[in-house]
């Protein structure tokens, strides 16, 4: 079936809610007539059942973790526990107003306090702010802290060093903070080498941003030396925690020379991916950066918890990053997972994530080209070098995987790999699922030789064939309009 837009359904006067009657004497007479709007034209008019059918049907056009394997590299698409959803919906959490007096919010504050302590411990830092709304905002925050730190020493500095394997958010966040970006080349082993950093490092460099393991899944084994080089010139070391899943309980960025790191709770701690958020990007720091942390902070005073929200208590703070206290709903879910795992479960997470990635890697070696044969951890990057001769690209392989019932890996990233296929299975996937995925990848490689046209014609199974992205960008249609006709 085809499911029209919600605006293309319905009938005039229909309504899908049951509201209390308006106050008997209501008129908008106390509002200036110029301010009052009649009903909003264009809004849908639907019964509850129509809305239910619409979104039920739409949902069936999506692939989610709950419907199948989703090895989207760098996104850590692990299972989202249903318990966490039930917990976040407890009225005491869901219906809590951010300005509730502290005595009516002690449970929420205690949860935040305990989560902050756990996150600091897990990454090996002294303090953590829960405020940032997502990983990218965490990066922004981290750079603000770095800037504030340098400013307090008289000079914000000008540059940030970023390896060529980095996520795009790293340079974007640097630019938003007014820093020029200096890109560093990784070595042929996929690692950043101390000499590269040494050559680029000077006293105009505010920080280096490193993802560890990096986006090739490779551990930056020179990290301690690199950190020493940067620190020696007064720079700081920023850790992009996107790949923290590989290190949980095994090693801690704070013990490797990092000064600051952001988490992505939806990656590492399984808060729902939700079709693209909400995220939550706590930032952990060493003591030297703690004075600059954004507000709020939760403090424990005796048995009582309290939010510090005003700069007068924290004069060096960089300020506020988002309204109120961060994505509290995500804190509940992340804390629930940490509580259920305990120390051993947290460590097992990293171990099994790395085992899964290496299991896939080993079995696809030879079938797909491995541009960096260095040891990798929780994810592995292949490319399409062995398929190219047959005219089959990474894009084609990805689309063909869809026909096999799998979500494709991340493709064409990291940029240092031409035609990258970045596979991150995560620890919640079973060996059988990995075997089925490997079999599909191998079948596609065979098909690329035998019948490349079939691969290029993929996908054939979903509700839509390949979509014309060029047209979308050239003639943008970004909203429904009456009479809209795109076909």
């Amino acid at each position: 079936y085809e499911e029209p837009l919600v605006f293309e359904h319905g009938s005039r006067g229909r309504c899908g809610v049951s509201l209390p009657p308006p106050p008997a004497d209501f008129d908008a007479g106390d509002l200036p007539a110029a301010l009052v709007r009649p009903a909003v034209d264009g809004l849908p008019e639907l019964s509850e059942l129509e809305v239910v059918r619409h979104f039920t049907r739409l949902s069936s056009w999506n692939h989610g973790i709950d419907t199948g394997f989703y090895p989207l590299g760098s996104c850590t698409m692990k299972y989202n526990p249903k318990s966490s959803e039930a917990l976040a919906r407890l009225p005491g959490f869901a219906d809590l107003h951010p300005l509730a007096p502290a005595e009516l919010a002690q449970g929420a504050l205690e949860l935040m306090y305990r989560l902050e302590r756990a996150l600091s411990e897990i990454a090996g830092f002294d303090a953590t702010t829960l405020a940032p709304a997502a990983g990218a905002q965490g990066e922004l925050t981290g750079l603000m802290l770095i800037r504030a730190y340098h400013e307090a020493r008289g000079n914000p500095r000008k540059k940030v060093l970023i390896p060529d394997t980095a996520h795009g958010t790293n340079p974007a966040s640097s630019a938003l903070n007014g820093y020029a970006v200096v890109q560093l080349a990784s070595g042929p082993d996929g690692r950043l080498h101390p000499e590269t950093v040494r050559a680029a490092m000077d006293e105009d460099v505010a920080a280096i941003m490193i993802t560890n393991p990096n986006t090739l899944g490779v551990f930056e084994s020179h990290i301690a030396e690199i950190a020493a080089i940067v620190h020696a010139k007064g720079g700081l070391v920023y850790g992009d925690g996107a790949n923290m899943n590989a290190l949980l309980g095994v090693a801690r960025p704070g013990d490797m020379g990092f000064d600051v790191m952001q988490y992505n709770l939806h990656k590492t701690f399984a808060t729902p991916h939700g079709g693209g958020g909400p995220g939550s990007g706590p930032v952990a720091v060493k003591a030297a950066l703690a004075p600059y942390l954004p507000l709020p902070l939760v403090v424990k005073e005796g048995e009582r918890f309290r939010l510090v929200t005003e700069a007068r208590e924290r004069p060096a703070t960089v300020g506020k990053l988002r309204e109120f206290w961060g994505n509290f709903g995500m804190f509940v879910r992340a804390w629930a997972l940490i509580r259920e795992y305990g120390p051993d479960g947290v460590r097992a997470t990293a171990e099994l994530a790395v085992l899964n990635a290496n299991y896939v890697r080993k079995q696809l070696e030879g079938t797909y080209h491995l541009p960096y044969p260095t040891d990798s951890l929780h994810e592995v990057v292949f490319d399409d070098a062995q398929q190219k001769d047959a005219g089959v690209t990474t894009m084609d392989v990805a689309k063909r995987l869809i026909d096999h019932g799998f979500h494709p890996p991340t493709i064409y990233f990291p940029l240092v790999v031409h035609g990258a296929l970045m596979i991150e299975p995560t620890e919640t996937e079973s060996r059988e699922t990995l075997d089925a995925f490997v079999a599909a990848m191998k079948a596609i490689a065979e098909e690329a030789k035998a019948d490349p046209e079939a691969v290029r014609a993929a996908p054939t199974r979903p509700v839509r064939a390949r979509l014309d992205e060029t047209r979308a960008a050239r003639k943008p249609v970004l909203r429904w309009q009456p009479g809209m006709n795109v076909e």
Partner: protein
Amino acid sequence: MRYHPHTPDDVRAMLDVVGAERVDDLFRSIPQALRLDRPLDLPPAADEIALFSELRRLAARNETAHPPFVGAGCYPHHVPPVVDQLLLRGEFFTAYTPYQPEISQGTLQALFEWQTFVCLLTGMDVSNASMYDGATATAEAALMAGRITGRDKVVVSAALHPEYRKVLATYLRSTGDEIVTVPFGADGRTDLAALAQAVDGRTACVILGYPNFLGVVDALPEAAALARAAGALTVAATAEAVSLGLLQAPGALGADVAVGTFQSFGNPMSFGGPAPGFFATREKSLRQMPGRVAGATVDKQGRRGFVLTLSTREQHIRREKATSNICTNSGLCALASTIHLSLLGKRGLAELARLNHGRARMLRDAMERAGCRPVFSGPYFNEQVFDVGDAEAVVAKLAKRGIVAGAPLARWYPDAPHAKGALLCAATELHGPELIQLFASTVRS
């Protein structure tokens, strides 16, 4: 471990395939000195029953018998249970950013619908696929205005939500742009004379709350006219989006950018987050807009479909030249709003907005009878500031009765008139006549 499918046999067999002895060997690329040689210092694992009992205990400490009488940027509203049931469908809830459109049409079409709802309510041409929240959306609007105008000054109403102003200040700290704050008058609206003085040829944009933090429907048309004359953009920030069912669309009153949050549609308060920020603007500013955007196109067979588009603005393509660093935003929250707005529809939204305004008026009457007069004379939607004598004392007294009334104005405006007594109060469809009466009489008691 219910989330880890690996049995000991699985691990053994997989290690054999990988060619490793122990799981530890897989980490050999991490120098021994950098490894953690002890277990993490975390509480021991809790089984599901213990977990629920612990979190229920924490949650119970925050539970109150009545909905709060405060909005101030986060509003207590009824969310029909059907919203949540649809939201929790795994196909929505466990999908991610729709990088593969062929198997993400559900998310993409829903985002396209969200963008349309935002445009319809704000009267704007284009909307992105959501922001973190209203405050960052406001900050991004100021950054966009700077990019468009090439100017370095932002004029902000003092009646704009204080949290929005704080975040704006944080975001603008590194650009070095100047922020000029314009006071409000006795009616709670932005002081237009002061605004006229502040706006000049350096001004990138003027930012107003609509309604503003004082609950007052601010002088948007007048402010927009002043801004336009100076070549600056006008940004209207709406924290209580239900108001857009009764009030003129910001786009109809001259705003160039409409930002804020749709928390009121389908999202619980959740101690302030998450909720979906929105960002909408005029067609001509489209390519300067931050954030992700869903667009319609066709597939190979000519069928309508949806994709993420205009990504050349974004960080994963443009890196340091991107219009913003935002990537993951508030997808699930935006979906909740989209579902709730679909249920409400034309009639429901109009009724809900009128009901909210009616309840606020009922509260005004009850508070006046209780001897607490409104502080500002401007038009209001569902929030108003009342002079209750000693606002902090009233909040503390109500807390003891299990009623949340958390916004004494002096916390943000210590020098405002009547600041000691000024309490910002909200009433919505959740506050029935008896409850409103109870509140007013408890305030007075």
